[in-house]
């Protein structure tokens, strides 16, 4: 018998009030999806396809209005949402660092909420700064606006990992970065994921990134889960949209191959 999923969505739905006179928006439509322990799952899909909503349902930043969600075997409705959030790391789409709190304070916020002794929090902060390759002496006391965009996103990742969660949810953590940094940060995180034995769900727009980093990829469109599986499994999908999504990286790679001389030599 396979191990129970660490995160399990069963026929989950979420509808938003569209505002004053707009129609109601079905953001997540009857989604069933399991994430196994130790797995790295990427969610891809167009803008507005319901990726962020799906992720937030897991730590109850948004409450589902249909179906059920389990985290570590427990139905999230039976768990205190505050405690649930403290044991799930979350990286926000826009960074979400507290602008008035230092880098160290931002990273240490959840451990502090959990009541760790101050000395332990400080040690942990330094560990994490190391982990995301930021020089502690230099950055610990800076405010977020004194960092570059990439450094901010590293701090966002460090904050998500601070309280030693088993689960990390990441909403476009490497967006708005130059390709080199993005690549490096992605690889770094992939290593962390393996080293720390995390279970990671990462949202991305970028199919290439999803294929390179994730064990499995889930494709969302219009609130529905179109397909899920390893990149190899997905190539066999009969869905036209999924096929198009998967062909894009290869087509790009081929065009690049044709345009750029081999080995970078002139």
């Amino acid at each position, binding site marked *: 018998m396979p191990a129970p999923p660490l995160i399990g969505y069963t026929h989950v739905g979420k509808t938003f009030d569209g505002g004053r006179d707009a129609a109601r928006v079905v953001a997540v439509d009857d989604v069933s999806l399991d994430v196994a322990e130790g797995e790295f799952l990427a969610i891809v899909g167009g803008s507005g396809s319901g990726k962020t909503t799906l992720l937030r349902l897991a730590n109850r930043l948004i409450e589902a209005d249909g179906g059920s969600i389990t985290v570590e075997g427990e139905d999230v409705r039976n768990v205190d949402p505050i405690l649930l959030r403290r044991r799930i790391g*979350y990286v926000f789409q826009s960074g979400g*660092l507290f602008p008035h709190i230092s880098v160290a304070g931002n990273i240490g916020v959840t451990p502090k909420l959990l009541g760790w002794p101050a000395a332990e929090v400080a040690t942990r902060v330094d560990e994490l700064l190391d982990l995301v390759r930021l020089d502690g002496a230099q950055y610990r006391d800076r405010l977020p606006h004194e960092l570059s965009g990439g450094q901010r996103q590293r701090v966002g990742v460090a904050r998500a990992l601070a309280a030693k969660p088993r689960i990390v949810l990441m909403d476009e953590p490497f967006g708005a970065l130059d390709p080199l940094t993005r690549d490096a940060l992605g690889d770094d995180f992939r290593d962390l994921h393996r080293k720390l034995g995390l279970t990671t769900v990462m949202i991305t727009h970028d199919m290439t990134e999803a294929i390179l980093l994730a064990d499995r990829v889930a494709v969302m469109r219009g609130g529905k889960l179109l397909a899920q599986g390893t990149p190899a499994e997905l190539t066999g999908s009969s869905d036209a949209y999924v096929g198009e999504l998967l062909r894009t990286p290869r087509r790009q790679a081929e065009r690049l191959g044709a345009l750029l001389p081999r080995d970078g030599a002139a």
Partner: protein
Amino acid sequence: MNLFSDPRWSEAVAHLPDYLGNHVRVSVTALALGLAVSLPLAIIARNRAVLRGALLGLASIVQTVPGLALLALFYPLLLALAALSLSWFGFGFSAFGFLPAVLALALYSMLPVLRNTITGLQGVDAAILEAAQGVGMTPQQSLFTVELPLALPVMMAGIRTAAVWVIGTATLSTPIGQTSLGNYIFAGLQTQNWVFVLFGCLAAAVLALAVDQLLALIENGLRNRSRIRAAIGGVGIAALVAATLVPTMSRSASSYIVGAKTFTEQYVLSALIAQRLQAAGLSASSREGLGSNVIFDALVSGDIDVYVDYSGTLWANQFHHSDIKPREVLLAELKATLARQNITLLGELGFENAYALVMPRRRAEQLGIRSIADLASRAPSMSIAADYEFFSRPEWAGIKQAYGLPFRTQRQMQPDFMYAAVASGEVDVIAGYTSDGLIAKYDLVVLEDPRHAIPPYDAIMLIAPKRASDSVLREALQPLLGRINIAAMREANLRAAGGDGASSPDAVARWLWDKIGKR
């Protein structure tokens, strides 16, 4: 002459510890109360649209009420409350001075604090709020560690605005009996002591600036996580409060308080009474610039111990009689009425401050006019001027009924200008005040009132119920009774309206005592 060698500057400085101390205490208390109410209200209301609208609307309405009116409104309100509390719970409280001033000013401070706190909290980025939730904060933790710190600059701007408003408006609390820097301004305006007016305005402005800067320092310290700056600001405010508490705390609490209304004669008389009490070894201070509706109630409740009022004023305004009685009868009835409230009518000072028809002496002699009755046949070719309320007062109706007097024209004028106007012949007759010093200055004559159409306005000394059996007080005041004749009072008033160092109420009161004490 050097502007600052004027002795009134040093007199103003001598009052500073008392006025400034009271001013700071009332402002700081009002601001603290205002913050204690507004901040929680703003936090509760920030996510409730209906409550938010109602609160901001109410606070805006309060803000449109002129400061002077708001302060004045709190006085009768508290008076009624005090009476209720006395009959229901068996204890009353003073509706005079500190309490109404603090309440009105606190109300006044609410709008900027409410508005800026709500705006500041609503201005916090939704993504940041979500992050606070996402890292596992409770709503309270989010409020105190994220929302309030981020809203702080906007909130502090509101608090600073409120502080400056409160300190400025506190100058208007003088007429309801709260000593403040406004005492300089009210007294100065009445006695044409521009040094006092200027000094009061400067002191209030400097105080407002200082508090604003200290608050800015605290804000800056909090924002930049500089404990030192925040501490300096906090210590500065604390020091300011402490410094103003010390001199007033050390003053003896058992001192007698002499009340004065808002015109020159009252400032002189209260200074005179205070000087007599001090000469008798009692400690005494003046509470000046009290509104004429406030001062009687202040005496009843014992907030002031003694003051001078006028028989006709009490008769008509306080006890609402519309008939006019001969002076002795009126005084006797007044004395009996007052005694029922346990107020002592100690006696008359010896002069009246009544309305009177006044014209230049030479002209009156030429025309053979000595009384209002003589005026009747000349009136159709003459003009009369009076202050803004005279022609609608019962005195005027009474005069017309008794003497006719079909004047060719009636004009209304600023009282200060009337005397010059009649002296220069611009108008023929004015309705002046019998004790006004300008009557002597312009050589005017007060026409007799043989038919007693104008009620008597004898200056009378009143003593508070709680001092009813205070024989030391009575003895100290006895020498003033019946001693101040109209000529002496007029000259004193004229001196007090002068623009120099010898014209302060204290100096004039000493002059007056020299003059009457010798007889």
